[in-house]
C-alpha cells in the first residue's frame, strides 16, 4: 500500500502514540445489505500533535473515532497503542484501554447526565481510573482549573442545565482528562457551540494538548478550523480517506475533487457578494448543485465513491475505486485523475520541499 510509505505531517511533534492500520467497519442494515462505514482507513496519532478527520455527515468519521475508542468492534484492521496491538477482550482490558484513550462527544447538551452535578461527572472517572486512594477532591478541583472553570467549587455543585454550552463542553473535556489519557479523540467538539465560543474552546484544547502532550484526533466538518488547529488533515468521504497531508497544504491547494468541493463550500467573507448574493450559484471546481437527483450526495457503491458528484468522473471512476496515491512525502490523494483535478500538484516540478508547512 502506498500509504505505508507516506509520512504523516504530524510526525515531527512527538512520539507515536496510536496506529490505526487498515481499519474497516461494516454495519448490517437488514436483508443482507451492508453499509461499509469505514473502509481500509490507516493513520497515526503522535503525542502532542493534532490530526483532523474532515468530512460531511455520514462519511464515517465518527465511526472511525468510535473504533479507536473501543466503542465499536472492528470488522477488520488493527489498532496499536504505544506499539502494542490493542486487544479488548475483558472489562479490565477495556478500562485500561479507556484510561489511555478518551472520547469527547459533540453535543454537550446530551453527553452530560442532567440529574447529576458537575462534581459527580468528574468524581466517577477519577475514582475509576486513578483508584480510590487518589485525593479525589483535589483532583476534581485541579481538573476544573485545567479547563478553566473557575472558581471550581462554585461550578462543581451545578447541574448541566445551569451551565452554558461552552461550560458544559469544558466539563466534558475535564471528564476526559480525569482518566489521564494519552490519546484524546474529539468528535466535533465545537460544532454545537457559538462561533464566538468555538475559538476559545479550540484554544483550550490546543493548550491541553500541549500541556499533557496529548495525541489528538480532531473530527470536524469545518475544514477551516482544521487548517488552524491541526497538523495533518485526513479528508474522509464515504468511509474512505480520499486525501491526506499537512493542514496548510491540503486547505490551500486541495488535490482531491471532494476536498476542492469542501474548500469551495466554506463561507468566504473575503469574497463578498461574488457567490451567494449575486444570486448565481458558485461554480466551484466540483459543485454538487445542478444534480438534483443527488443533492445531498449519496455515495456510489461501485468505483470511486465520489464519482456521482465529481466533474472529472469517467468510466474508470465508475468501475474502480482508486487507492491513495502518494503526491509528496507527506501528501496523498485517492483519485484517478489527479493530473486533471490538481495539475499543479502532480505534473509540475514542485516537490514537497518548497511547500509551506506550518
Amino acid at each position, binding site marked *: 500500500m502506498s500509504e505505508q510509505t507516506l509520512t504523516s505531517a504530524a510526525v515531527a511533534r512527538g512520539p507515536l502514540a496510536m496506529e490505526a492500520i487498515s481499519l474497516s467497519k461494516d454495519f448490517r442494515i437488514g436483508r443482507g445489505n451492508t453499509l461499509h462505514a469505514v473502509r481500509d482507513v490507516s493513520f497515526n496519532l503522535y503525542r502532542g500533535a493534532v490530526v483532523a478527520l474532515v468530512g460531511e*455527515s455520514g462519511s464515517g468519521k465518527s465511526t472511525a473515532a468510535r473504533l479507536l475508542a473501543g466503542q465499536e468492534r472492528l470488522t477488520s484492521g488493527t489498532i496499536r497503542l504505544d506499539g502494542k496491538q490493542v486487544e479488548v477482550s475483558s472489562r479490565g482490558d477495556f478500562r485500561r484501554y479507556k484510561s489511555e484513550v478518551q472520547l469527547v462527544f459533540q453535543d454537550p447538551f446530551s453527553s452530560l447526565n442532567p440529574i447529576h452535578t458537575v462534581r459527580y461527572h468528574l468524581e466517577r472517572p477519577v475514582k475509576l481510573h486513578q483508584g480510590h486512594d487518589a485525593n479525589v477532591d483535589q483532583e476534581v478541583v485541579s481538573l476544573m482549573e485545567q479547563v478553566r472553570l473557575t472558581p471550581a467549587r462554585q461550578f462543581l455543585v451545578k447541574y448541566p442545565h445551569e451551565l452554558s454550552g461552552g461550560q458544559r463542553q469544558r466539563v466534558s473535556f475535564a471528564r476526559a482528562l480525569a482518566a489521564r489519557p494519552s490519546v484524546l479523540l474529539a468528535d466535533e467538539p465545537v460544532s454545537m457551540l457559538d462561533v464566538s465560543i468555538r475559538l476559545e474552546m479550540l*484554544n*483550550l484544547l490546543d493548550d491541553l494538548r500541549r500541556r499533557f502532550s496529548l495525541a489528538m484526533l480532531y473530527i470536524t466538518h469545518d475544514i477551516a478550523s482544521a*487548517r488552524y488547529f491541526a497538523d495533518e488533515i485526513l479528508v474522509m468521504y464515504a468511509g474512505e480517506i480520499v486525501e491526506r497531508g499537512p493542514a496548510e497544504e491540503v486547505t490551500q491547494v486541495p488535490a482531491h475533487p471532494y476536498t476542492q468541493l469542501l474548500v469551495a463550500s466554506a*463561507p468566504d467573507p473575503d*469574497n463578498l457578494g461574488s*457567490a*451567494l448574493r449575486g444570486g448565481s450559484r458558485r461554480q466551484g471546481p466540483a459543485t454538487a448543485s445542478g444534480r438534483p437527483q443527488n*443533492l445531498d450526495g449519496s455515495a456510489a457503491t461501485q468505483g470511486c465513491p465520489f464519482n456521482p458528484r465529481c466533474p472529472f468522473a469517467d468510466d474508470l471512476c465508475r468501475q474502480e475505486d482508486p487507492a491513495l496515491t502518494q503526491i509528496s512525502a507527506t501528501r496523498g490523494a485517492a483519485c484517478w485523475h489527479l493530473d486533471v483535478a490538481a495539475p499543479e500538484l502532480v505534473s509540475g516540478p514542485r516537490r514537497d520541499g518548497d511547500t509551506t508547512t506550518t
Partner: protein
Amino acid sequence: MSADPAAGPVAGSSLADAAAPSSSPVLDIRDLSVVYRTPAGDVRAVNQVNLALGAGEVVGLAGESGSGKSTLAYGACRLLRAPALVTNGSVIYSGRRVSRPADILTMRSDELRRLRWREIAIVFQSAMNALNPVLKVRDQLLDAIHAHLKMPRDEAHERAASLLDLVGIPRSRLRSYPHELSGGMRQRVMIAMALAADPEIIIMDEPTTALDVVVQRDILAQIVELKDRLGFSILFITHDLSLLLELTDRIAVMYAGQFVEIATSDEIHRESSHPYTKGLLNSFPSLRGPRRELVGIPGSPPDLGNPPPGCPFVPRCVYARPECQDVDMRLLPVATSRDPDHVTACPFVLPDTPVPSPVPSSASGRPAGELGT
C-alpha cells in the same frame, strides 16, 4: 393570490405615515421590547430595538446564543408565549397584498391568522424537530396549504409537488417520511413549506446550522435563487457572521438584547466599528488567504436579569474605559463612514481605532493566533 384587505384597517393611520428610514419597508420593527417574567424579576431579552426590512432585502441578525435574536423575531410575529411578554413597541407590516400598513402586535387574532404564513413565514431552526415524524412530507405540505390557502384538493396536490420542485427535491419524495430524508432534504422541505403560501417575508432561524458546509452552501444558494425569483424578503438569524457577510445585504449585530451595530455587509466586513462586531469577525478561522491572528471574544454574555450599567459588552471589551458605564446604547452614525445608515452603539471606537494594548487574555493565557503552530 388576491389582496387581503382584512389585514389593513387595524392599528390606526398614525402608523402609516410615520417616517420610514428609506423607501417604505415591508416590516418595520420599532422600539420592540420583550421580557421574560421570572420570579426573580424581568429578564430583558430584547430591549428597545428598531429594525426595518425592505422589500426583497436580505437582512441578517447576528449574535451569540441568548443575545435575543430569536426572541426578537418571534416577538415581532407574536409567536411568544408566557413567560415571554412583549412590553413595548410596534411591528408594522406593509406588504404588497395588504391595502394599509398594520401593526402585528395589535392585530385581531383572525387578522393575525391571515398574516401568518401568507405574508410572513418562518423556517425554524431544527428541521429534525420541526417536521412531524409520523406524517408524510406530502401531508405536511398539504396541511400548510389547506390551512392558509383555499384551493381544491388536486390543485393543492399539484402545489405541494411544485413546491418540492422549487427546492430541488424529486416529487417521489412526497411519499417519504421525514426520517427517510437526509438533514439537508428535511431543511429543504421546511423551506418548501415556508414558501407554500407565497409569503412576502421569510424569517429563517439558523436554517443551516446543523448541516455540513457543502449542503449548507447548496441550500443558501437555493434560498438566494428563490428570493430572486419570487421576490420575498428574508430575515436571516444566525450566530455565524461569516455566513451573513456573504449572504445578506445588511447585518444587524445583536448583543444582550440590543443592537450594537447595523450596516451593510460590506461595511461590516471592511469597516466594522463596534468592538463586539470586531470580536465576532476575529472569531472564525478563514480558509483562504494568509493565516491571520484570531482573537475571539473571551468571557460570556451578561445576565439580562441584572444587566450592568451602560454598555453590556464592557466586561468582554478590549477597548473598555470608565466612560463606558454611561453609554446609553443609542445607535448613532459612524463618524468616519460614508454610509449614514451605518450605525453603532459604541461612541468611542471607530473602524480604525487600534486595540489599546495587547491585553493578555486571562482565559487562554496566550494569543489565539498561535493555534496549530
